[in-house]
């Protein structure tokens, strides 16, 4: 083969590659998306099936709203939904109020055992919830926090606080101290310095961490299962109720789960860009 032919051959190969590459990439991504999203799809399908059709795998069936009627009208599902919102939202609000100053202190001040404190906070996330649930349960019963909003919100800090503190701390460390001092010289009081100069700078990280914390809190199962009773029910617990002693109403479980997932999906779609940039920016440098 002559050199010339080789050249045209290889350039031909290249142009074919150029076409194949995006196709292959998209195909791979589609396959992965199908694989990853399949449980969600299956859940939605189940929600529209009647109990009788539950155990077959045909995709063509008579959709029914029976399950929705049973869950939304027949039970106090909305109450659980609302209560979950209160608990998860409350937990995140307290986390932001307490965690941002905490992150600031960890980033700016030097005190004894600073790194140990920071690591201790992070370590709350290492321990499985089941490990601490029994003592917490006993304590909650004794002090009257069992089955209260406050009790749940408090214990949710274990889930939400470490994440926010570590992300926001990284953001604070990236801001030069001189920016604060400049604002001080400009005549702003400490809280104005904080809200006018620092908050806008940490906002991406704070929002991303708070929303992620919200999702974690929303999904929490172990804590509300053990630490709440009849008064307060989160939707993760409520879904269990459709497992009766004689039969499991998979359709109703699917409806409860589908609706429970909605806020998370909406939140995640809204903040997708924010989330990736916000978390990676702070975390890598922190």
């Amino acid at each position, binding site marked *: 083969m002559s050199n010339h032919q080789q050249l045209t051959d290889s350039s031909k190969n290249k142009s074919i590659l150029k076409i194949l590459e995006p196709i292959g990439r998209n195909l791979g991504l589609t396959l992965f998306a199908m694989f990853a999203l399949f449980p969600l799809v299956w859940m939605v399908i189940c929600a529209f099936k009647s109990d009788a059709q539950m155990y077959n795998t045909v995709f063509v069936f008579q959709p029914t709203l029976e399950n929705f009627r049973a869950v939304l009208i027949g039970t106090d599902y909305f109450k659980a939904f609302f209560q979950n919102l209160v608990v998860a939202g409350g937990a995140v609000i307290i986390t932001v109020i307490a965690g941002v100053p905490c992150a600031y202190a960890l980033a*700016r*001040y*030097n005190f*004894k055992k600073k790194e140990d404190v920071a690591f201790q906070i992070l370590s709350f996330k290492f321990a499985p919830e089941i490990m601490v649930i029994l003592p917490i349960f006993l304590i909650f019963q004794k002090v009257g926090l069992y089955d209260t909003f406050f009790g749940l919100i408090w214990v949710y800090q274990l889930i939400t606080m470490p994440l926010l503190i570590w992300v926001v701390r990284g953001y604070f460390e990236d801001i*030069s*101290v*001189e*920016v*604060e*001092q*400049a*604002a*001080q*010289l*400009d*005549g*702003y009081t400490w809280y*104005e310095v904080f809200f006018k*100069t620092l908050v*806008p*700078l940490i906002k991406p990280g704070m929002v991303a961490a708070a929303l992620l914390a919200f999702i974690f809190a929303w999904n929490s199962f172990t804590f509300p299962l053990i630490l709440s009773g009849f008064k307060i029910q989160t939707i993760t617990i409520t879904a269990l109720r459709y497992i009766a002693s004689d039969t499991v109403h998979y359709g109703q479980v699917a409806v409860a789960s589908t609706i429970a997932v909605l806020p998370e999906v909406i939140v995640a779609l809204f903040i997708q860009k924010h989330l990736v940039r916000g978390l990676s920016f702070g975390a890598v440098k922190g």
Partner: protein
Amino acid sequence: MAQLILKNVFKRYDGQKKKMFQKKKENDFAVKDVSYECKDGEFIGILGPSGCGKSTSLRMMAGLEDITAGEMYIGDVLINDLQPKDRNIGLAFEDYALYPPLTVYENLAFNMRAKKKSEQEIKKAIDYVAPLMKIDDLLNMKPPALSGGQKQRVNIARAIVRRPGLLLLDEPLSHLDGKMRQQLRQEIKRMHHEIKCTTIIVTHDQMEAMSLADRIIIMKDGEIQQIGTPLEVYDDPANEFVAGFIGEPPMNLMSSTIEKQGQKFMFTFEGSLLQVEVPRRYNKIVKDQMKVTLGVRPVDVLIAKEEVSSTPVPVAVYENLGDERRISVRVGEMLLSMTTPDDVYYEAGQKVQLIFHEERTHLFDPETGERIRV
């Protein structure tokens, strides 16, 4: 507009320190018994190597550090316990410290908005300052889009837009490259000429201090070494440190033993045959076998064109820098360098005879480093 007075100011950092304020750990004084007075409208340069307490002094003036002991006045007001915002100062930070989410205009307006000035007043003030610092084109941009030099212009503009009584510049040029540095240096000078505000610049670059300041304060280890006009500190250094710190290339400082030969006193150097006559004005104070440190600037060392009494020594290094020529001679362990604008050429090894400029040959006490004066 105001004068600044420091009276016996001390600064000591505690052993355990907050991270936000500087790095030094030692339980020692960062600033020791510093007193001076800056007149209204004067441009003062605080010069010294890193860690000499110059930035700390500045931060105490700004109110970002406590004053451990002593008194500081701006005008007639004791400012020791005044909040930074009440001191009427402008500080340009080394790292610019602009607010990234705000545009340049908003950055400049930030301070005046805190003081609840009207938008008209703010606009007027910025319209005055922006052309002065040549940032009129940048007003709508945000700091991340600016170059280092532009950021520093904005930073200085922000410090002067509030019309401070005292303007503090903390190493404003240290992060810029050579050409930008020179340009901005001239602009700072011009700016000071225009607004005539008492200005203090902290720098470790002696060129900056020499060219900008009306008076220079040279500090080392928290203590003032000398205060004087640029010419004074150059021509009449108070001690060995100042002599070695000011001037580029630095002053030749060589330890020498004085020997009496007949009626004359001669400088002799260990490990070298070089002997140079001691200037006559020192005759009353020098003794035979006295040890001194001899200081002479490279421009004040001359190569004799005719026969003189000093010993010929071989040239060690010859460098042609275009506008000047540097010639170095080995004297024992040390190199004695000289510069000359004359277009001369010497081979390495060629013998030359040296003459020291009599008036500008300084003696220092080798123990204390203090200047020995006649």
